[in-house]
């Protein structure tokens, strides 16, 4: 039987996060999972909206839940950790705080929408590792990535506050996934430490310091790849390496990827399909030389 999930792409997917989108779709298609898009979804509100008005933010996100509610598959999944958190929080607060739930439901009614509460917000990583399972993943591996030493970077909003399938401070899900792909995960104490998120736009010096610590530690732990889960984390870690170098006077450059891109590589897909060329730290020849060399195609 074919697995189906309702899919919430999220705004960044349309721009900077395109590669995340492409690789996710490619990999899940390969695994025979159907992702049908939530039609006319809207922005989840992210952190910024919360800062302006709690109720509006929750109501905004709730529209997506209401839309998903009409689908026969009530499992709503998204590749973006920010969206994952906000949708999850909205759903939980509507239950936890009756006043909020009541108010949001009224707001939805004004828009001719209704939310029964049956939607379950799932993270794609959760689906990949638990619904599909690592055994299934192993079956698809055509190119075990023996030379890849992975610093697994989960980022904050993937695991906090709602992660229920792994430990929140030192999770091992990606580590186990990486192993399934033949790669070696390194110990990575910063795996759930914040990258600065949207502060990169507003307070670059602050966010870059956080990214600096993460990149530096990844190299220190002997990794040659950082895997990230969230488009924003990836953007921050991937795009600002030159700025960080000039700001802190230390070269911390290291190749970064979405976990789905690594899965795709191990599945033997070509880099184009996985949107690898869109990563700033992308270097095809390096990848061939250091990672794929020796790995059967």
């Amino acid at each position, binding site marked *: 039987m074919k697995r189906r999930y309702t899919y919430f792409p999220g705004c960044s997917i349309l721009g900077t996060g395109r590669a995340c989108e492409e690789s996710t779709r490619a990999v899940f298609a390969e695994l025979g999972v159907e992702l049908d898009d939530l039609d006319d979804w809207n922005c989840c509100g992210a952190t910024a909206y919360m800062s302006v008005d709690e109720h509006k933010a929750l109501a905004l996100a709730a529209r997506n839940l209401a839309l998903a509610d009409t689908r026969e598959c009530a499992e709503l999944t998204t590749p973006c950790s920010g969206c994952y958190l906000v949708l999850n929080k909205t759903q939980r607060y509507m239950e936890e705080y009756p006043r909020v739930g009541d108010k949001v439901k009224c707001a939805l009614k004004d828009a001719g929408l209704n939310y029964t509460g049956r939607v379950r917000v799932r993270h794609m990583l959760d689906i990949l590792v638990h619904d599909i399972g690592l055994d299934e993943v192993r079956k698809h591996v055509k190119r075990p990535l023996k030379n890849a030493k992975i610093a697994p970077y989960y980022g904050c909003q993937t695991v906090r506050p709602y992660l229920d399938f792994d*430990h929140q*401070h*030192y999770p091992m899900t990606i580590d186990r996934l990486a192993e399934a792909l033949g790669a070696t995960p390194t*110990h990575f*104490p*910063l795996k759930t430490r914040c990258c600065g998120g949207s502060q990169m736009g507003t307070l670059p010096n602050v966010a870059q310091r956080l990214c600096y610590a993460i990149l530096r*530690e990844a190299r*220190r732990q002997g990794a040659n790849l950082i895997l990230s889960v969230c488009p924003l984390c990836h953007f921050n870690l991937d795009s600002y390496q030159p700025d960080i170098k000039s700001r802190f006077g230390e070269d911390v450059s290291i190749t970064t990827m979405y976990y789905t891109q690594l899965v795709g590589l191990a599945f033997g897909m070509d880099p184009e399909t996985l949107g690898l060329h869109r990563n700033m730290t992308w270097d095809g020849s390096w990848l061939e030389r250091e990672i794929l060399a020796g790995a059967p195609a």
Partner: protein
Amino acid sequence: MTGFQKTAGNGRQGARGGEEIRIGFYVCHCGMNIASLVDVAAVAKEAAKLPNVVVSREYKYMCSDPGQEFIMQDIRENRLNRIVVAACSPNLHEATFRGAVARGGINPYLFQMVNIREHGSWVHTDAAAATQKAIDQVRAAVARVAKHRVLERRRMEVNPSVLVVGGGIAGITAALNLADAGKKVYLVEREPTIGGHMAKYDKTFPTLDCAACILTPKMSAVREHPNITLWTYSEVVKVDGHVGKFHVTVKRKPRYIDEETCVGCLECISACVFKAPKFEDEFNEGLGKRKPIYIPFPQAVPPLVTIDPETCLKFKTGKCKSPCETVCDRKAVDFTQTERFEEIDVGAVIVATGFKAFDVTRLPIYGYGLYDNVYTALEVERMVTSSGPTGGEITLRDGRVPKSIGIIHCVGSRDKKTNRWCSRVCCMYSLKLAHLLREHTGADVYQFYIDMRCPGKGYDEFYERMLDEGVQMIRGRAAEVTDWTMSPEEEGKLVVRVEDTLAAYVRRIPVDMVVLSTGMEPAAGAEEIRRMFNISCSTEGFFLEKHPKLAPVETATAGVFIAGCCQGPKDIPDTVGQAGAAAAQALALIDKGYVEMEPNTSYIDADDCSGCKSCIPLCPYKAIAFDEASKKAVINEALCTGCGTCVASCPSGSISQNLFEDDQIFSEIEEVLSHV
């Protein structure tokens, strides 16, 4: 003392016999505790109007001597033969007033108490409603007491021996106290040796006297005491009966050594086919290794070896020449041993099953298991002990001697995600460890604490001393232990990230060794013990005392006492004190030779009994038997504990319960509802 008095002879005929029912009613102000909300005057006024009430009075403190005197006096002067007191909870003063009633010259069970404090003034805010409630309950009591009959308490002889469960310092103390008083004591311990947690400690705070030096003499005293039967490596599996006569079944696990013949020469251990110790040593918190045939520690009591079938080749493969067996000239090794069951009768039980240290893997934020140099406090206790796995050497797992050490407090305490409660001992033992670690290594020691709690004799002085010794106190709950570095001096170290809340700076403190001061949890298996002995538990799972202040070692089950950390986290002095108290309570019980049982037992009206036998399986105490001759059920009053379950289930309504007769309860129901 104000009151309403009716002219004598005003009472009506009672329900039973020709006897005239003359009730005296008394309502207590309890200072302002009751009177502040309940209109006691109104209650007294209403009560005066009730049938059979001859005297109705209010008084400031009914439980005081003058209060009780009023009752006795009225009984004499107004020929009262029933008494009702509206005051606090019967659990507090029922006995007091029954005493007064008896001294007044009438049967103590011609008395009923109404709880208008705990169930009234203290829980309500609306004076009118509270008063009305009080009046309704009083009406019920008055109606009920009229139907009370003369009852006698049953005397039951008490078995003069005591069972002590748990051989830690609490159990040891209690057992020795009782044995010294000439009582027979059975001491049952789950582990191969007694001594409990205390045997694992090096020094004890605040005096820093060596734990072994003060504990081991007591341990051997237990072994040598003629009045103590010591069963180690054993567990209580079944408990029947009740106060005065508990029937207890103890499972004795096979240690594959004949306890009578083994003299503890330990030849067998050196003879074992495993030349070097290979298996995790529980007593040393896994820091050391032991063989399949082992003794927990040299001063173990009893000094017997134990064979662990999980690791012994004889059991695992069957293919072992078992030199242990051949080397033993007393032929004490016995692989055929199986578990045995001992059955004993005791009059009282002292439960002292201790605690379990918090499992630090529940807090990965502190990196235990992830980083080699993160240790639990108990591991460090073993390490600093000269008889421990490292012979008192403080060496990290990589062999280095730590130059800087961080001790993290409240690990698994004061944390809603794990355990909410304060474990009370961690502040002090952390200071103690700080001292010992500095003594052994000269390292800098940082204490990461939320609040220092040193309330005990000489405790705060010890804290002060540690400050003078240069232990660095950082007020802040350590947020994480990590090995990522931001600066050269952090290379190769563990970094504790913490807010120094008094300096209001977040600090990164690099250390070589981290010690986690784990809190206390209810012991493994506490739940089973609790159920077996019918002890209720407080929210955290520790055993619940009968009264937090006035009955700290008693439980809701008569004859079962608690001592030590099974009742809640506490340090050694408190534990020993409590153990002594429990022993004294048990002694008071058994020394008297008998217990007086409440007369609220069930009885059968043989004429009405149809002999359907439906009550017989219902009685958990097997107190109901079927008399083949008369074809009727009969209740053995000695066995009946007075729950009344059989009464409620008798189809022919031929079973009644003293003090809880159907007509008494029905009249209560009628009266609490009669107000419109």
